[in-house]
């Protein structure tokens, strides 16, 4: 199969590896400076192409940060048609509008057949040949069929889901929980705290998914629960990784590591040191900040995460405040 691959980053590397049995047409996107590491040779099955060549690739994977999705989508829209299938891997919502990536692609391209590939997999596991599982969420059976056929390699399990909007909401919101898991782990608050945070965090994620018109089950699936557990896993939190590849939980842990600094300044220093992963995460939380007022949902974990990334309180104060929020029925 001739498959298109656009973008960069961790998911890009996973897909580049898992799609090794196919011919890959790689387009770096509309900003070539963010392309696959300069000078690094591309594997033999990947061929760098110009935008026009993507006309011939019916299935295209997009691995892009949210702020690049609209401009890149607009470029892609010049060559795509209703026949193409676009599958993105972006766990985020547009800052100003809270639009999902699939909605953005629907506005910027003529294609209607979109999907979202997400779940607990990363480059480390994929390149080591360890088990990878994920979910392809799409309204279209053909998208599921092609993605599963493309990723048909040993050790890879791709589930199907029909709730595209719900999966995107769950995958984005679970990052809010992950940042606080990192805070709790670094403060050594113990397994009880972490278990409570994960459980109540998923409940909050489910409320958000419902509010966004999705199905509650998407929060408990690989898009919500799967991503969150993966972000919060010990391997992920304590493993060595470069700042520009840091997980959300690792970024949360940084708030504790830097607690001697004035808490109002910590978010900016983290942004400076970690770059786009921190920017994306903090911008997402800031965008979601208006949801409690708009929806009428309490969302206490989100409110506290917002205070953390706004520098309103220290990590310890945030956790103490969280533990004093009123308790109701589960």
């Amino acid at each position, binding site marked *: 199969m001739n498959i298109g691959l656009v973008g960069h980053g961790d998911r890009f590397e996973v897909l580049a590896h898992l799609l090794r049995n196919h011919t890959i047409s790689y387009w770096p996107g509309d900003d070539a400076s963010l392309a696959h590491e300069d000078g690094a040779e591309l594997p033999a099955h990947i061929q760098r192409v110009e935008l026009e060549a993507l006309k011939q690739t019916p299935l295209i994977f997009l691995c892009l940060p949210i702020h690049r999705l609209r401009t890149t989508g607009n470029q892609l829209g010049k060559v795509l048609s*209703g026949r193409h299938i676009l599958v993105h891997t972006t766990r985020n919502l547009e800052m100003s509008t809270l639009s999902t990536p699939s909605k953005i692609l629907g*506005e910027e391209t003529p294609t209607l057949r979109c999907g979202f590939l997400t779940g607990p997999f990363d480059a480390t596991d994929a390149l080591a040949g360890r088990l990878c599982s994920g979910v392809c969420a799409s309204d279209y059976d053909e998208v599921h069929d*092609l993605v599963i056929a493309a990723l048909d390699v040993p050790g890879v399990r791709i589930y199907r889901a029909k709730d595209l909007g719900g999966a995107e909401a769950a995958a984005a919101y679970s990052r809010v929980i992950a940042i606080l898991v990192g805070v709790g782990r670094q403060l050594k608050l113990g397994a009880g705290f972490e278990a409570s945070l994960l459980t109540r965090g998923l409940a909050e994620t489910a409320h958000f998914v419902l509010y966004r018109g999705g199905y509650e089950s998407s929060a408990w699936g690989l898009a919500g629960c799967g991503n969150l557990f993966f972000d919060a896993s010990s391997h992920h939190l304590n493993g060595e990784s470069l700042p520009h590849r840091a997980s959300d939980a690792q970024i949360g842990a940084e708030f504790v590591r830097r607690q001697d600094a004035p808490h109002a300044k910590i978010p900016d220093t983290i942004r400076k040191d970690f770059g786009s992963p921190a920017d994306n995460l903090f911008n997402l939380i800031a965008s979601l900040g208006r949801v409690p007022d708009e929806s009428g949902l309490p969302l206490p974990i989100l409110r506290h995460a917002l205070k953390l990334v706004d520098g309103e309180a220290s990590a310890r104060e945030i956790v103490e405040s969280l533990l004093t929020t009123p308790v109701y029925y589960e």
Partner: protein
Amino acid sequence: MSQPSLFRYNKDRAHIVSEVCQRTYSAILAETRRKDDEGIEYLLNEAAFQEVERLQGEQGPEDEIHSISWWRDVSRRLGEMSESQKRTILRELAQSYTEDITGSFDPRVYRLATGALPVGLGMLFKAQDLRQIPFSALHMRKAFKHLRDLSERIVIEGHVDTLRHLARRGTLVFLPTHSSNMDSILMGWTLFQAGLPPVTYGAGKNLFTNPLTSFFMQNLGAYKVDRRIKHSLYKELLKTYSQVLLERGYHSLFFPGGTRSRSNKVEEHIKLGLLGTTITAYTNGLLSHKSAKPIYLCPVTINYNLVLEAESLIRDHLRREGGRRYFLEDDEFNQLNKVFRFALNTMQMSSTTVMRFGEPMDPFGNPVDLNGTSFDARGRAVDPTSYVRKALTGEVCHDISRDHQYTRHTGECVRRAFLKNTVLMPVHLVAFVLFELLQQKFPRWDVYRLLRLAGGEIIAGHRAQAKLDALLIDLKARETRGELRISNFVRDHTCAEIFEEGCSYLRTYHSSPLVEPMMNGVTLNKLDLLYYYGNRVRSFPIDLAAIAPNT
């Protein structure tokens, strides 16, 4: 315009019936072969069960295709029938239902209707005092011209010119909003007046037994829909019928809301059954003829100041939504009285109705220009055939799951087009403002409590006008952003004039005036109808308290 496609309908009729029967029969057989537990007997049993239940319960004046004893007999024998016998029953049912559904078109009746209809409608909508119309033998032609001159009272606007071009290129499917039984009549006149072709459309079977309407229904291309029949076979036949008509190039019309809006809100839920036939017909066209005629969808909004059946519609809505919270009021009037009252009262008013044609689109929701070119959301030309091609091989194919999603997407595009093309008129704005001010007086009461207890409340005139002023500013900004439309009257008149106009409408037609002017304000009487007319504005996310907080 060359002769419209509907003019050849009667010649085609037998072929259409035959094709619909054959297609439905073959599709059902193919489906039953695919699934072990879905033999023909299940389909027939479902039909028999539902028809026996229905016929035991009620029988309207409409002819029944098969009697209850026939259905009972089928039901009893079904378990013992051979496959061949079941197929015979299936074929017979398909034939009899299709014959019943299929309409007819007589060009002579069409010419009569397009000549006589404006006279009838003119009497309903013409503003002038009937005494002014010169009804003498010397001036009959002038008199009829007077009554026929509806163009002042029924305003046609929107993408009419584009549609005239597209009618020559492909098959049009009009999708109007639905508030009243007057809609079909108005659409028929509007299409004729706008130089657009006549259409075929599904009409409730009850309209074919009404002595006033049946003659026209039977001869103007309408096909019968028996809403009492709910089983899958009948629904499948209706959908196939619609598809076959589209494939044969017959311009069509159906109401995507399915039924009249009870609340007067712009349709929020679009029924997808018939809408989906446009994609199936389009794909069939591509598969059978490479140069098949394209299909174009056109959302249309019908915007009334006053609605003929408002009282019964809002009552129906409140009863369904409110349940035990809604207390029913007695209404003595029958249908004829209502029509008569509507005719008398609206003749006194300059009642304007706006028929607005939205931007046409292809079956996938892409806007289309007058050359028939589809464009995506960013204005780039797009090939609509690409949507029904397999991603890997590029071959055109049906895909039930894919097409169902496309239909949902197109339904959403139609819903948004309805909102964009809704024309808000003085009566909507004034009714909305008055009811919202009433709600502000009793912030803890829900709508049902307000309806029950707040009748007779007085709203200060200066407050109402201040709110209306703020609302107008907000609406004009929304119109600039393309979110809705306001009527020419609202655009060209002052707040005071709009308030006066709205109030005068609210005193007209209905069994008692909805509002009564007082020295310094307005007394609110029929709150359910005020709520009904204000619901047109509530179709949009407008928070009056937020845009005018200090009034």
